[in-house]
């Protein structure tokens, strides 16, 4: 079940170059936090710090702390962190040599679960949750390239859900999809928030406003403003937010 994620003074670096500057924010449980901002603002870097994927890039480094349910994620084993904080990437990245079923089961198997009935139960449940089950239930053992890109992306969501994380990060999950698939993902996010804490990076401001309980704007590696979308979009406190929203930025 979802738990809130608290970030304290997070700074991130690639080599000597600083990308994020002392970001502090809370992503409350069972809510959707959307992260917006121009390209290069550091949104992806930020969310990759949350599941410690950032540190797998050569020369990448971060400072500060991230708390999940009073546990400092930076004191845990990164492998454990990634089981608690799931991630879906910008472009669908299913494992191309695996079947639909095996893609969803991959996380379970990688984490040492062998019991067949547990695995197939969990696969079905995750595909139900990502509302893909009806479309693939007759082709579970087919190769993944038979799926459309939109289906592949929902498969990646199912894959992330199968290991029952507390937090689900989606980094621009719909930006390479057609509008209909994009809408499906958006609906999915709304449904999933009752089970998970959701962090959604998006370029689409309308989408951010529609699905968010909380929105945060990043500019040049800084968290400029955060608040409910109603406030942030209609009564921005920061001049830079207003400039960004009215298109005077990037």
């Amino acid at each position: 079940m979802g738990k809130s994620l608290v970030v304290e003074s997070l700074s991130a670096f690639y080599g000597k170059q600083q990308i994020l500057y002392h970001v502090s924010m809370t992503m409350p449980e069972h809510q959707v936090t959307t992260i917006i901002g121009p390209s290069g603002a550091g949104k992806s870097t930020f969310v990759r710090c949350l599941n410690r994927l950032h540190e797998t890039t050569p020369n990448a480094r971060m400072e500060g702390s991230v708390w999940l349910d009073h546990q400092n994620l930076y004191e845990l084993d990164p492998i454990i962190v990634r089981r608690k904080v799931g991630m879906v990437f910008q472009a669908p990245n299913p494992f191309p040599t695996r079947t639909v079923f095996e893609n969803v089961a991959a996380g379970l198997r990688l984490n040492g679960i062998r019991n067949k009935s547990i695995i197939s139960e969990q696969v079905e449940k995750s595909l139900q949750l990502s509302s893909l089950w009806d479309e693939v239930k007759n082709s579970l053992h087919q190769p993944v390239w038979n799926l459309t890109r939109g289906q592949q992306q929902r498969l990646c969501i199912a894959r992330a859900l199968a290991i029952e994380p507390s937090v689900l990060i989606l980094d621009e999950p719909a930006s390479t999809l057609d509008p209909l698939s994009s809408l499906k993902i958006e609906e999915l996010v709304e449904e999933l928030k009752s089970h998970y804490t959701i962090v959604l990076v998006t370029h689409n401001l309308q989408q951010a406003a529609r699905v968010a309980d909380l929105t945060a704007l990043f500019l040049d590696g800084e968290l400029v403003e955060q608040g409910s979308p109603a406030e942030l979009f209609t009564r921005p406190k920061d001049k830079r937010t207003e400039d960004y929203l009215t298109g005077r930025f990037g």
Partner: protein
Amino acid sequence: MREEQFIRAIKRRKRKDQWYFVFLLFMGFLSLFPLFSVLYYVVSKGWFDLFSAGFLKPTVGTLEMVLIAMVFAIPLGTGLGLYLYESRGTRMVTVVRYTADLLSGIPSILIGMAVYAVVVISTGTFSLFAGSVALATFSIPYLGREIEDQLIASTSAIKEGALALGATNTRALLQMVMPVMTRPLIVAILFSMSRAMGETAPLLFTTLGNHFWPIGLMSPASTLSLQIYFDALSPNSFVQSQAWTGALILIAFIILLFLVAKWITREESK
């Protein structure tokens, strides 16, 4: 009036297009010409002798030497590629990568001389094995760089996908990334085999050539490329003609390797 101009413009463009097409066709034939002339010569001059027993020995020698070279090159090249990919960003990798590029691009006769100094002198004999070492020496960096490029180009997203599910680095690499790499890996191996097959210069210093059976691992041996080289230099015109047959067999093997590689990559894009 306007419409007439328009139609004339279209006609002009069409004519231009046709000329351009003829030009392309011509360039295409021009670039294919050397290939076909080589094929024509090799086949027409070489086929007489094709089934004479004299070619069995160099053929076996070539295959044996290339296969032994691959026994070294495949695991070491794969290891090198994984190392380059996994440790990218460190200064050591930059040095190793540079060295690998240098080694795979260096004139192969120099590699032959180096292997002569190391293997031939220390084992006290020219040998098929020394030839394999020479072939492996440039196949390893070639395979390593190919594998690194493939890993970077096509599998970073897959690896991150696995890491994000809580896979250890090793498991992500071995269970999720390597299966995707199988085909590119096989193709890279086929290409390096075809290059190794044709190499002659490094073998002069290491394998020497030998006209007698049996083909021992630690004795001088004959290969197709060496046989072509020596036969072509012979004053005897019958022996010279045997060089063509050797060339025919070699070309047949190389075309076969290319066809297999082509077939594998075609399956992939389906």
